[in-house]
C-alpha cells in the first residue's frame, strides 16, 4: 500500500487565551497530521482543546483574547499561521472548510438556503455566471441527499429539520471542493437515526470526493464507526494517537483505557461501569507533570514532576505516558500483570 501524501500538518501548536487570570494555554504543543482522503478523529471531553484546535486551523480563534502563541499549521507545506487575513480568506472555505455542531446558529435565519449557498459560491468563484452558480448550488443540495433541491433553495432555515440543516451546512462546506473538511461535533445535536444518516453521508462523500475529514467528537462510538486514525486529547495535550483498531483494541494511555471502559455498551450489560475518579481539570490548572496524574490509577513519583513525552509503542501508535518509557520497564510489567 502506498502512503498517501500528508495534506495538513500541525506542529507544536500552542493556542493561548489571555484572560484576567493570566495566560491560559488551551491547546499546548500538539502535533498531528492528516493525509489525503483520510478520516481522522479527534476525541476528548469538554475543555480538552479539541474545538480550539479546529478553530486554530481555520484561523478563527477569537482574538483577543485568543492567539496562536507557538507552532505551525502546514497546509500543503504552506504555514497558515503566517498568512494575512486576506490570504487566509482565500484558503478558508475554499481549500479547508468547516461545519459546526449547531446547524441552526450557523445558518442565517433571514436568508433563504439558496441565498446563502450562492453567497458561499460567489465568494470564491468570482468569474462564474449567475446560472453556473445556481446550478452548482442545486447540484450540491442533491449531492448531500436532500430531496426537491430546487424548491429548497427558496426555503428559510427554520423550515428545515435539524438533520436537513446539517446537510445544508455540509453542502455549503463542500461547494468549493475543499481538500480538508473539519467537522466539529457535526452530529451531537441530532437524534440517533438522523446521526446515522449524516455519518453515512460523510463517509460516502469522503469516498466519492476524496476529501480529507477531521472529525471532532466526544462520542467514541462515532469515532469507531467513521474514522481511520484517532487522536485522543486530554487537557490541551495529545495523549495518544494511533489507528482506530489499535486505539480501541489495544489502548495504552490510562486515560484512553478509562474512557473506553466507562462507555456503556449497548450490546451487553456490564455489571458496573468503570469510572475515572475526579474531574476534568480546568485549562491551565495543572502546571507541572502529567496532566492526567491526579486521576490516574498507575501514577508514580515521576508523573507529578516531569511532563511525559510521546512514546512510540508500535508503528504509528504513540502514547504520552511514562509507563511506556523503556527505563520504566519494571513498572510496565507490573501493570501488565495486574490488568
Amino acid at each position, binding site marked *: 500500500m502506498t502512503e498517501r501524501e500528508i495534506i495538513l500538518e500541525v506542529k507544536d501548536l500552542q493556542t493561548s487565551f489571555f484572560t484576567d487570570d493570566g495566560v491560559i494555554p488551551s491547546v499546548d504543543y500538539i502535533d498531528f497530521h492528516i493525509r489525503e482522503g483520510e478520516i481522522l478523529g479527534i476525541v476528548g471531553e469538554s475543555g480538552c482543546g479539541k474545538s480550539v484546535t479546529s478553530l486554530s486551523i481555520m484561523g478563527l480563534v477569537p482574538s483577543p483574547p485568543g492567539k496562536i502563541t507557538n507552532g505551525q499549521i502546514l497546509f500543503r507545506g504552506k504555514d497558515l499561521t503566517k498568512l494575512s487575513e486576506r490570504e487566509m480568506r482565500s484558503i478558508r472555505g475554499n481549500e479547508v472548510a468547516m461545519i459546526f455542531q449547531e446547524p441552526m446558529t450557523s445558518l442565517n435565519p433571514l436568508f433563504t438556503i439558496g441565498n446563502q449557498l450562492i453567497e458561499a459560491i460567489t465568494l470564491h468563484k468570482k468569474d462564474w455566471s449567475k446560472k453556473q452558480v445556481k446550478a452548482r448550488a442545486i447540484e450540491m443540495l442533491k449531492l448531500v441527499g436532500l430531496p426537491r433541491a430546487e424548491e429548497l433553495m427558496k426555503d428559510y432555515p427554520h423550515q428545515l429539520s435539524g438533520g436537513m440543516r446539517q446537510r445544508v451546512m455540509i453542502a455549503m462546506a463542500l461547494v468549493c471542493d475543499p481538500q480538508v473538511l473539519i467537522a466539529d461535533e457535526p452530529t451531537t445535536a441530532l*437524534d440517533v437515526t438522523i446521526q446515522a444518516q449524516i455519518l453515512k453521508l460523510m463517509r460516502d462523500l469522503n469516498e466519492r470526493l476524496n476529501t480529507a475529514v477531521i472529525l471532532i467528537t466526544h462520542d467514541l462510538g462515532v469515532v469507531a464507526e467513521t474514522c481511520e486514525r484517532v487522536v485522543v486529547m486530554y487537557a490541551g495535550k495529545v495523549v495518544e494517537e494511533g489507528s482506530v483498531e489499535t486505539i*480501541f483494541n489495544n489502548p495504552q494511555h490510562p486515560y484512553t483505557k478509562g474512557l473506553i471502559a466507562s462507555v456503556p455498551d449497548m450490546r451487553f*450489560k456490564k455489571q458496573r461501569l468503570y469510572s475515572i475518579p475526579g474531574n476534568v481539570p480546568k485549562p491551565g490548572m495543572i502546571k507541572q507533570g502529567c496532566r492526567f496524574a491526579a486521576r490516574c490509577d498507575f501514577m508514580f513519583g515521576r508523573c507529578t514532576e516531569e511532563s511525559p513525552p510521546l512514546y512510540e509503542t508500535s508503528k504509528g501508535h504513540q502514547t504520552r505516558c511514562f509507563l511506556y518509557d523503556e527505563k520504566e520497564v519494571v513498572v510496565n510489567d507490573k501493570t501488565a500483570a495486574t490488568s
Partner: protein
Amino acid sequence: MTKPLLQVEGLKKYFPIHSGVLGKQSGYVKAVDDVSFYVNEGETLGIVGESGCGKSTTGRMLMRLLEPTEGKVTFDGKELTSVSNTAMRKARREIQMVFQDPYASLNPRHTVEKILMEPLIVHNIGDKESRKKKVYDFLEIVGLSSYHAKRYPHQFSGGQRQRIGIARALMTNPKLIIADEPVSALDVSIQAQVLNLMQDLQKELKLTYIFIAHDLGVVRHISDRVGVMYLGKMAELATSESLYAEPLHPYTKALLSAVPVPDPAFKREQIILEGDIPSPSNPPTGCTFHTRCPFRMDVCTTVVPKLEEVKPSHFVACHLYSEAVQH
C-alpha cells in the same frame, strides 16, 4: 412477585395550538397519546426515544407537573390524577425528580445547604437541627463532603451539580425517582460516575427509578425493563435483555442499529431510516411510524396498532405481530 408501585393507564397529553389574530384553537399537538405501563417496586424502567417522542412529557405528567389530558396514574394504591393539588403536593414527597441540566435546575443564589433543605421545609419534615444533619448526611451519601454545604452551585462542576440534584431528590426519602436525561449533559467519564452512584443508591435505599434518556447504551446499562417511544406512543416495551437481543418493532430495530458502537471490529447491517420524525401536530394516520417503516403494509396506514404481548413480558405495537393480520 413484586407488585407495581406505579401504574399508568391511557395517559394522554394534548397541547392546544392557537393560531390567527383571535387565537382560535386550530388543533392539537399530541405529545403523549395513549400510553400505558407499570413500574414494579425496586426496578428501573427506562424510557427511550428521540426528541419530540413525548418521553419527558410523560415523566412530567406522572408527577403532575403537567396536567394529563386524559388517563390514570396510580401510585402505591392511590390514584394521583384525581386528587386535589394539596394532596398531590403531599404525594410528591414520595415521588421526586432529577432533571437534565444541572446548571439550570439549581438556584444560583442559594447555597447548597439551602437548596437541599428546601424540600424538608416544604414537606415539614424535622426541625432545624435534624434538617441540617440530614443535609450533611446526604451530601456524604452522594459523594460530596459536608463542607460543600456552604458553597453556591457555580462553584461546582457539572458532575458535582448533578450529585446535588440527586441529593435534593433524596431528601424526602422518596420511593420513586423520575430521572429525566440525568447524564446527557455530562462528559463520558463523569457520566459513568453518576450512573454508578444512581445504581448504588438504588440498592442501598431500595429506590424505584424511571430513567428517561435518549442514549440507548446508558438505558440498557441501568434499566431492568425498557420502553421505546415514538411520536407520543409506546412502540415496544420489554425486559432490557429481550429488547436489545431481539427487538421486534421495526423502529426499535432501526434505532438500535443506528447507535454507533465503540468497537471498530463490530460489523452489522445498519438500517438507515429515511426522512425525519413527522410533526406531532399532524401525526400520520394508523401506525405513526408507517411513513418511515421499511415493512409497511396496507393496514398500517389506517389502523392504529395496539401494544400487545407477543412473547412473555415483551410488548410491541406493530401489525407485523398482531394475530388479525397473520390470519
